[in-house]
């Protein structure tokens, strides 16, 4: 299940035990189901959701019509998620999904576009160690060192292997934070508190999914949350 939201900002939260934890406030939905894709019509089963109203002039005529079929105003973001054929029956066009979806989940996956960092060196971009500040190091303090000979990377030929870690553009790419703890869900306000940071600046569109895969202890917590 996927819902779209907006990153509001970070603050702190004291839970019942009085533990002070950093949280990110995320505005989740309400999302409108704009299309239900089935194996017969589209070749695969999926649900498309839309989030955030926009002005008609910022949308396109085909998309305005597409949203209108779901009884919705022109929407800014559309994303789809795959479902099994059995789950498909739970969704219908025009249906509204709210943060309540996540009320029983202890964890979610959060995706978004990270903040752009510009052109960065290898120390910031790839966590290289760099060189020493002293002991005879000259003009190479933050350098990445040797990138190897051609043969070391590709066997033969004059070129380096693709993907060699060097300086370059960093950030402004899609990042997924997996198994982010759910602290509090407030469906009336369409808000949700998740533990710790999520990608991107405030105001960023985020995709929140039910957790794809959880490690042992987190999976146990999730089972308990579903029960209770």
């Amino acid at each position, binding site marked *: 299940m996927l819902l779209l939201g907006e990153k*509001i*900002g970070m*603050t*702190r*939260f*004291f839970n019942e*035990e*009085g533990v*002070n934890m950093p949280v990110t*406030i995320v*505005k989740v939905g309400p999302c409108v189901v704009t299309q239900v894709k089935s194996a017969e019509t589209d070749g695969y089963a999926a649900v498309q959701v839309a989030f955030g109203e926009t002005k008609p002039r910022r949308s396109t005529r085909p998309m305005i019509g597409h949203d209108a079929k779901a009884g919705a105003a022109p929407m800014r973001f559309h994303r789809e998620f795959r479902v099994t054929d059995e789950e498909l029956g739970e969704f219908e066009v025009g249906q509204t999904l709210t943060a309540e979806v996540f009320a029983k989940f202890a964890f979610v996956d959060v995706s978004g576009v990270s903040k752009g960092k510009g052109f960065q060196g290898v120390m910031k971009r790839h966590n290289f160690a760099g060189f020493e500040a002293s002991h005879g190091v000259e003009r190479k303090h933050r350098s990445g060192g040797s990138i190897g000979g051609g043969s070391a990377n590709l066997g033969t030929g004059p070129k380096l292997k693709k993907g060699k870690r060097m300086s370059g553009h960093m950030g402004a790419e899609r990042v997924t934070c997996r198994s982010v703890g759910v602290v509090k869900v*407030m469906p009336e*306000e369409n*808000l949700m*508190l998740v533990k710790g940071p999520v990608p991107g600046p*405030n*105001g960023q569109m985020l995709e929140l999914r039910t957790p794809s895969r959880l490690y042992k202890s987190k999976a146990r917590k999730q089972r308990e949350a579903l029960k209770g």
Partner: protein
Amino acid sequence: MNRQAIIEGVVQDQLKTDVPRMDVGDTINVHCRIVEGDKERVQVFQGTLIGRKGGGINESITVRRLVDGSGVERVFPLNSPRVAKYEVVRRADSRRAKLYFLRDRVGKSTRLRDRRRGMKHLAK
């Protein structure tokens, strides 16, 4: 609704409303809740308020006291539920916002001027 207003709305019910007026320099009692297993007890930490930092939900206070001749400073998040109560024991006058200079002082020189001069601008 703008984003800042949403954040303030979320933390609103976490803010304490029963915090007394505490100024830097005052001697205060901090009643900490300490949980040991399933039992809970209250421990009082008395010391001089040497600084306040942050605002709203993020505000914290630094309290300094002497224990067996060595200085102990504790930082409390002002709105933490683990603090049961704040009490002002003695008011003092301070011309500074942070009393870090007390760290370098021992004995009589750590005394702060009593708040007599400033009684007028005290709220209560």
